[in-house]
Every structure is written in structure tokens, then in C-alpha cells.
């Protein structure tokens, strides 16, 4: 991850090539990430319940957001139907525990595997379509699931949903009850860290570079010999898996799953997060999550129409920096850096 010109690994070329990782600013991102993780690890035990719930929500939704960034930020596919996978993840866990008597890890695995499967099947159909057609067909898919969830109340509990008793988390040497808020907290933190590490590695890998090439110029990438469909499908499935994971964790947190998991809100939210925070940066959408969650938590208390502010915020942010908050920070940094050079 060093600058080429300071570490001649694999051959020195001329005046040095800016390492790809430097270009995506991952040094700074990694630093921020470490700081955030350490803070989270430390404050776990001392958070009051209200705040803990808030932080938990932000962590779970950040998993959703980072996965979605791969789709929207890295391959520019705007899915309006990811609530489908969020809901599948939630019901995956809830139904496995209720009907299959599955243990914690098995249930979680089923939830994620189901998301993967649905994403694969839907992707085969949807990814082929372009732009607005893609947006609408993903909307059609989630709508179908939402409507089915509402009407098949024998299976899904409809609007009211299904409450479930989450089995304890067993780690071989000991079993922990998820009802202990600390256990819940560190479990989610674990998944958050794992998600970031996996996705950050993917993004700086050749696979990630291909994604970016597809985003920058899909046709060009095709003429370079890349089977663009396969890569877009891979991004679709990847984002769906993390949406499913976050849906499962969300259901665990709430101890129930209902039709709302499939609703339009969970399809639009990822887009808003990405936009506010900055697409294609992994941590950008997390910032979007933080902002939206804080808004919801604090502002909605005194003004239930807080979404108006969000609406205005969206427009203002877009005007100032179409690349979101992270984009704004990056461009300020570049200005500063090039000013010195």
C-alpha cells in the first residue's frame, strides 16, 4: 500500500507511479476506519441503552450501505429493489429459527445463502437491462415480494410480522445470549469490521479495478475483453449478500421480521445514503447512514416532518458537491495537495 516511488516492489518504473491504493485514498480511509473501530470497541460497555440502539442501527445499516456502494458506486447500477434482499435476510433468519429450529449460525447462514440465491436468479434477468429499465425491473421484483409478504400472512405475519426468540450465539467454547445487549453489540461490530475488510480488499483488487473500469466506460471495458455482464452480476450478488446480512442482523436486533423489511423505504434509503455521503468510496455511504440515523433519532423527536430537512439537505449537498460529502473532502484535499506540489 505504499507509494510506488518509495518502495520499488516489483520493479521501478521511471519517476514512480502513484499506487492505485493511494489514488483511492485508502490510507486515510483505513486510518479513519481503525479509529472508528477502536472507539466502538471501547464505548460498547458504557453506552446508555438509547444511544446503544442508535449506534447498533448505524452499524447494521452501514453493512447494507457498503455492500450497496459496490453496486451503485463501483459499477453504476442503480437498483431500486434491494429491500428484497434486506427482507429475505430478515425472514431467512426468522423463519429458520421458527420452523427449522435452527441454531444461530445456521440460521444466519441460511439467510445469507437465500439472499445469494435470490440475487443470482434475479440478477440473471435484471442485470442485462440498462439504466432506467434496470431500475424499474428491480422495483418490480421487490414490489412483488412486498405484496406477497403483505398477503401471505400465514407465512410472513404480514404487517405485524413474526416475533422470534433468537437462539444463543455459540462460539464453541461458550454460548452467549443475544439478549445481552453487549453481545449483540460486539456481534454486529464483528460483522461490520469483517464487511469493511472484505469489501475494502475487493475494491483495491483487480476485481475492484474491473468494476471501476465498467463504471467509467462500460463499452470500453467490453472491448478490452471483459465479459461485462458477468462482472455486473457479481457486483449485484455481492451487494445483495450484504443487504441480506444486514437484514438478518436488523431482524435479530428487533427480535422480529415483518413485511416492512420489503418496503420501498429500504430500497430508497441506500440510494440516499450513497448520495449524501459519496458514492464509490465505501465509507461515504456509511457517513450517509450516520447522518440519516442521527436525523431520525434527534430531529424527529421535535419535528416529525424531519424528512423535509433531509430533502433540502439532499438538494443542497448535491449542489455543492455531486460526489457527496466524501467527494467534497477529497476534492479539497486534492486542491491542497496540488497547491503544494
Amino acid at each position, binding site marked *: 500500500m505504499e507509494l510506488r516511488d518509495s518502495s520499488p*516492489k*516489483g520493479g521501478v518504473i521511471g519517476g514512480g507511479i502513484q499506487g492505485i491504493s493511494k489514488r483511492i485514498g485508502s490510507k486515510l480511509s483505513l486510518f479513519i476506519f481503525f479509529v472508528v473501530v477502536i472507539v466502538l470497541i471501547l464505548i460498547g460497555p458504557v453506552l446508555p441503552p438509547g444511544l446503544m440502539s442508535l449506534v447498533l442501527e448505524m452499524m447494521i445499516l452501514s453493512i447494507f450501505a457498503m455492500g450497496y456502494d459496490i453496486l451503485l458506486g463501483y459499477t453504476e447500477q442503480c437498483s431500486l429493489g434491494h429491500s428484497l434482499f434486506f427482507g429475505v435476510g430478515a425472514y431467512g433468519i426468522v423463519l429458520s429459527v421458527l420452523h427449522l429450529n435452527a441454531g444461530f449460525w445456521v440460521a444466519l447462514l441460511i439467510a445469507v445463502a437465500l439472499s445469494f440465491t435470490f440475487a443470482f436468479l434475479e440478477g440473471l434477468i435484471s442485470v442485462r437491462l440498462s439504466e432506467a429499465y434496470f431500475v424499474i425491473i428491480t422495483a418490480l421484483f421487490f414490489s412483488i415480494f412486498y405484496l406477497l409478504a403483505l398477503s401471505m400472512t400465514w407465512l410472513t405475519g404480514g404487517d405485524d410480522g413474526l416475533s422470534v426468540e433468537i437462539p444463543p450465539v455459540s462460539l464453541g467454547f461458550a454460548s452467549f445470549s443475544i439478549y445481552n445487549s453487549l453481545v449483540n453489540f460486539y456481534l454486529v461490530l464483528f460483522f461490520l469490521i469483517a464487511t469493511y475488510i472484505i469489501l475494502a480488499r475487493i475494491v483495491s483488487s483487480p476485481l475492484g479495478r474491473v468494476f471501476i473500469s465498467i463504471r467509467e*466506460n462500460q463499452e470500453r471495458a467490453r*472491448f478490452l475483453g471483459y465479459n461485462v455482464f458477468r462482472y455486473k452480476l457479481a457486483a449485484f450478488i455481492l451487494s445483495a449478500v450484504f443487504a441480506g446480512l444486514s437484514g438478518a442482523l436488523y431482524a435479530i436486533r428487533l427480535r422480529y421480521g415483518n413485511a416492512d423489511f420489503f418496503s420501498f423505504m429500504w430500497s430508497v434509503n441506500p440510494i440516499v445514503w450513497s448520495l449524501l455521503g459519496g458514492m464509490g468510496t465505501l465509507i461515504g455511504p456509511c457517513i450517509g447512514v450516520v447522518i440519516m440515523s442521527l436525523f431520525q433519532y434527534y430531529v424527529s423527536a421535535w419535528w416529525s416532518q424531519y424528512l423535509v430537512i433531509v430533502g433540502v439537505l439532499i438538494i443542497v449537498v448535491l449542489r455543492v458537491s455531486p460526489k457527496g460529502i466524501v467527494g467534497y473532502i477529497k476534492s479539497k484535499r486534492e486542491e491542497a495537495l496540488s497547491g503544494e506540489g
Partner: protein
Amino acid sequence: MEKGRGMKLLETVGLTMSFGGLVALDDVDFSVGKGELRGIIGPNGAGKTTFFNVITGYLKPTKGKTLLDGEDISGLPPHTISQRGISRTFQITNIFPEMTVYESIWAGINSRTKQPWNPFVRADTIGDISRKAGEICELVGLSDKMNLVSENLSHGDQRVLEIAIALSTDPILLLLDEPTQGVSPKEIDNLLEVIEKVSQVTTTIMIEHDMNIALSLSGTITVFNEGRIIAGGSPSEISESEEVQEIYLGIG
């Protein structure tokens, strides 16, 4: 009509492309040999770019076939044909706007590795690719601009980058579609040098609108008109041909 040097690398047999009533390519029999620098000229709408589009799989021909090194590649999708070794540039600059020169070339080289989709290693650390990228940059003269973002390059440099990206896949056949399009007189000499260097490394077919450039660079010239090949031969033969002059009368 054409004298191919060496083996036929690319051959089309009866290639026809029609869109509804419009016939863009009409029974085109074309061939180019290994090591050639072939120029393709002809007035606007003669079907030159359509020809490239069909060969590279962007369009499916209505009739006829394309053979690459003896193998039939007709009807294959663009990414497969690229993998078989045909690389092209575009008339309207088609690069990766927000990627740097290095990253763009990196992408091309990566596509030829065994696992271009590898999610486990850090892209940075693949020494092979960065070495090759450096070599290509040197060949085209962009070494000192490697870290510049593509969309910030001058138009002439972008056209050079266009060629570099096409080269990065180590093609056996390079198709250049009006590479000098829109390039200022200042930068044209550099571009032509690059094309000459490149053509010594790879078999090249070049569509060129400017007659002078085409005549001075190419070894052999093919003339298209209204979807058909109407003439072919050495630059001097072509420039003396009355037929060709007729077509170009009135066209700058």
C-alpha cells in the same frame, strides 16, 4: 487486388451489413497480412467504421464471415473477439474519464491475466502488470503523464492514450478508427510517430480521413465507397487512380 505480405491475418468473405433498407456493407472481401500497416480510406458514410464494428463483434453481419488467423469469429460478442486478439480505437475518444493513464492501461493488461477478477490480491502489487504498463507508456510517449487523470489530458494526448489502451491487451491486430480526428497540427506529428512505432509492433489497420496521412503512412491502401471496396493497392497507385480522385472530388 491487394497484395498481402505474409499470411492472411484477417479475412472477410462476402461481409454484408444491412439495416432495414440501408446497406452499409455490401459483399466485402477483405484481407490483411501479418505485419502490414493497411490504410482504409473513403468518403463519409462509405462503411469504414461499420466495417470495424462488424469485425469487432459490435454488430452482427447480415451475411458473410470474418476469419481471424483462419478461425471463424463471425457473430462472436465483442469481449470474446477482443480476447482473440483484435483491439480497436474509436473515432470519438472512448477512454476512462476519471481514471489515470496508468490505471487505464493497467485495466487492459489485466484483462489478459489468468484471473483478472482476482479479489484477493492488492492490484498495486502485481509487478508484472505495472512493468508492462510502464513499457507501453514509454512506447507511446506518455511516461511523464502516467499519473494524470485521463479527462485532463489534451485532445491529442487522449488520442494517444486511446491507442495505448488498445495496445495494452497485446493484440495481434490493431484497428485504428480515424486516430487523428480533431487533433491539432501541433500534436499530429507526435501522434503519427506513435502510430508508426506501434505499427511496427502489431499488424495495424487504420481508417484515415486525411488522404495525405493515409498515403504517407500506409504500406497498402484499401478504398471503400458506398459499402464496397472499390480499389486497393500501393499509395502511389491509389493517388494516381482516377476512380479514387473522382470520389474525393469536392471532399476536403
